[in-house]
C-alpha cells in the first residue's frame, strides 16, 4: 500500500482540479457540465483510436504508430467515396479497403519483421504512417472534405429548468458516444465469447505457445489489423463528420498514445477509461486552467490541451509505468 502513494497523490491532485472550478464557484454549474460533457465526448473519440492501439499491441506486440494514419485514410476513403455512392455503400467499401490494407501490412511489413524488437517494429509503423499519409492524399486528394451523417449538428438545449441557461448538447456527439459504446461492447463480446476471440487472446498471451497449439499466427494478425482498421474507420467517420476530414486528423489521433499509456497498453478497459480521463482532463485544463496560466505568466495564448495529455501521461509513467490496468512487467536476464 505504501508504494501506491504517488498514484494516490496524482489522482487526488487531478480530482481536486476537477472539482475546484465548481467548488469555488468559478463557473456556473450549467457551463461546468457542458465542459465536462464536451470532455467526455472528446474522450470517447480518443478511446476509439486508443482501442485500435491496444488491440494491435495485445495481439502482436506492435506499437502501432500508424493508427492515426489509418484513421485519416479511412475517413478520406469514406468522404471521397460518399461523393459517388450512398453513405452505407461508401462505408462498406472503405471497410473492404481497410481489410485489404491490413492484409498488405501484415504481408509486406510485419511478416518479414517477425521476432524483431519492439522498437524496430515501432519504427516500421512510423514508416507505414508516412506511407499512408502520402498515399491517402495522393489517392483521395488533400483538401478538406466533409462527411454528412445526416444527424443534426445544431446543439440542443436541455435541462433548462434545472440549471440557469440550460446545457447545450450536440445530438451528433450523443450518437457518437452510443456508437463507440456499442463498438466497445461488441469487441468485448468478440474477444470473450468467440473462438477467434479466444485465439486472439491466446496469441496475445504467448506467441509461441499459441502457435504450438495450432493457432495460425498470420491469419490472427490479419484479423487483428482488420479489426483495428474497422475501429479506425468508425473513429475516422465520427471525427471526420465533427472536424472535417483533413490532414490534421492524423495528428489529433496521436493523442491516443498518452491514452494507452494511462490506461495500460494491453487493456481494452484501460483504453476506454484512459480516453475518458484524458478527454475530460484536457478540456477542463483548457477551459479553467489555461486562463489562469495566461494571466499569471502573461502568455501569448492558451492551448495547453496540445500537451496536457502527454505531460499527464509522462507523470503517470513516472509513478506507475504499467498504467492503470496494465500488467506489471518483470525483466529477467
Amino acid at each position, binding site marked *: 500500500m505504501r508504494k501506491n502513494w504517488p498514484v494516490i497523490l496524482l489522482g487526488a491532485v487531478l480530482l481536486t482540479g476537477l472539482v475546484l472550478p465548481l467548488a469555488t464557484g468559478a463557473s456556473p454549474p450549467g457551463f461546468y457540465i457542458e465542459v465536462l460533457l464536451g470532455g467526455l465526448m472528446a474522450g470517447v473519440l480518443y478511446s476509439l483510436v486508443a482501442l485500435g492501439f491496444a488491440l494491435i499491441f495485445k495481439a502482436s506486440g506492435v*506499437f502501432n504508430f500508424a493508427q492515426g494514419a489509418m484513421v485519416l485514410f479511412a475517413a478520406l476513403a469514406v468522404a471521397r467515396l460518399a461523393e459517388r455512392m450512398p453513405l452505407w455503400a461508401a462505408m462498406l467499401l472503405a471497410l473492404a479497403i481497410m481489410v485489404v490494407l491490413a492484409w498488405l501490412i501484415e504481408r*509486406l*511489413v510485419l511478416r*518479414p*519483421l517477425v521476432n*524483431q*524488437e*519492439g*522498437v*524496430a517494429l*515501432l*519504427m*516500421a509503423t*512510423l*514508416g*507505414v*504512417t*508516412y*506511407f*499512408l*499519409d*502520402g*498515399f491517402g*492524399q*495522393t489517392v483521395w486528394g*488533400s483538401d478538406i472534405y466533409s462527411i454528412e451523417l445526416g444527424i443534426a449538428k445544431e446543439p440542443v438545449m436541455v435541462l433548462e429548468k434545472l440549471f440557469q441557461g440550460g446545457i447545450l448538447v450536440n445530438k451528433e456527439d450523443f450518437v457518437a458516444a452510443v456508437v463507440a459504446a456499442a463498438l466497445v461492447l461488441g469487441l468485448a463480446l468478440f474477444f470473450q465469447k468467440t473462438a477467434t476471440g479466444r485465439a486472439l487472446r491466446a496469441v496475445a498471451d504467448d506467441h509461441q505457445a499459441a502457435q504450438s497449439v495450432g493457432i495460425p499466427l498470420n491469419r490472427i494478425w490479419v484479423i487483428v489489423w482488420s479489426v483495428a482498421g474497422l475501429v479506425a474507420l468508425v473513429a475516422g467517420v465520427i471525427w471526420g463528420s465533427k472536424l472535417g476530414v483533413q490532414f490534421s486528423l492524423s*495528428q489529433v489521433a*496521436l493523442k491516443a*498514445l*498518452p491514452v494507452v*499509456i494511462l490506461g495500460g*497498453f494491453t487493456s481494452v478497459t484501460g483504453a476506454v477509461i484512459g480516453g475518458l480521463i484524458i478527454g475530460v482532463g484536457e478540456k477542463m485544463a483548457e477551459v479553467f486552467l489555461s486562463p489562469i496560466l495566461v494571466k499569471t*505568466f*502573461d*502568455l*501569448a*495564448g*492558451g*492551448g*495547453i490541451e*496540445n*500537451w496536457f495529455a*502527454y*505531460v499527464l*501521461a*509522462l507523470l503517470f*509513467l*513516472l509513478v506507475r*509505468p504499467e498504467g492503470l490496468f496494465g500488467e506489471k512487467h518483470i*525483466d*529477467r*536476464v
Partner: protein
Amino acid sequence: MLYRENGQFKSTYSSDQQMLPILQDRVLMGALLVAAFVAVPLLISDYVFLSLLIPFLILTLAAIGLNLLVGYCGQISIGHAAFMAVGAYAAYNLSQRIPQLNFLVVLVLAGLIAAAAGILFGLPSLRIKGLYLAVATLAAQFFMDWLFARVKWFTNYSPSGSVSPPAIELFGWVIDSPPEKYVFLLGVLVVFTLLAKNLVRAHIGREWMAMRDMDVAAEVIGIRPVYAKLTAFAVSSFYVGVAGALWGFVHLGSWEPLAFNLNLSLNLLFMIIIGGMGSLLGSYFGAAFIVALPILLNQVPAWLGMPISTEMASHLEFMIFGALIVLFLIVEPHGLARLWAIGKEKLRLWPFPH
C-alpha cells in the same frame, strides 16, 4: 588490391588504438577533408550551398546527436526536435541579452541548456523504456512547441512570435556568405564528429552500448543505469541543441515558433534508420539522403519531361520515405553505413576473393 593493409604492422599501443588504422583510410580522409575545406567552397554555386550543403551539415550534427542516444544507448526518442528548439531559443536569448558574448560560447551554452532539458525529459527513461519512452519524448516535443510559441519572454516579446537572430561574428569575421557559412559549419561538424567518435569508443560509449544491448545484464556487471542513460540523454541533447542553434542562426536566419515540430523529429529519426543506427558515418549518409531526396524528387520528373505538381511531389516524398523506412528495416537494419562496410570488405579482397 589498392585497399589492402598487408605490411602495415602495429608495434605500439597507440598505433593499435588509432581511429583510422589503415593507411589508405587515412589518405582518403585527408583528401576528403582537403576537398571539403578547400575545393568545395571555390567550386560550388550558392544555390547548392543554401539548399543542400548547409542543411546537410547541420542535420548531420543533429543526427549524430540522436544516434548517440538511439543508436548507441538504445533509448528511443521521437521528440528530439524539441531539444533543437531549446538550443535555438537559448542561443537567441543569450545573443540578445548578452550581445558581447562570442558566438562559440553562445553555442556551447545553448548546448548545455539543451542538455539540461534533455536530462529532465530523460528522467522517465530510468523507469521505462522502449515504447513508453517514445511517448515521454513526445511529451517533450509538444510541451516545447507550446512553450516557445506562448511564453513571450523566449521570443523577446516579438509580436508575431517569430525571431530573427543577429548575424554571426567570430573574432571580427562576419559569417554571412554561403561559402563562409559552409566552412564554419564544416569546422564545427568535424570537431563534434571527432568528439563523438572518441566518446563512443571510450568507456562511456561502451556503457551506453551495454545498456542498449541488455540493460538488466549491464546493471548486473556494474554499470549504473542512471549514469549511463542520463549521460546519453545529456550528450545527445547537447549535440542536438548545438545543431538547433546553428539551424536557426545559420540556415533559417529567422524562424517561427513551429520551425522545430514533430515532423523534424521524425525526419531525424529517419536519418539514423536509413543511415545506420549506432554508426557515426551512418548519420552522414542518412542526413545526406534525407536532404537530397526532396530536391531530387522536385528535379527528376522535370528532367524526364513529366513535371509533377509540388503538392504531388510532397505526397510522393512521404510515400517514398515511408516505404524506404520499412524496406531498410527489413532488408538492411543497419542502414547505408552497413552497405558501405560491406563494400569496403569486398574491396579489400578484390580482385582475389580467396
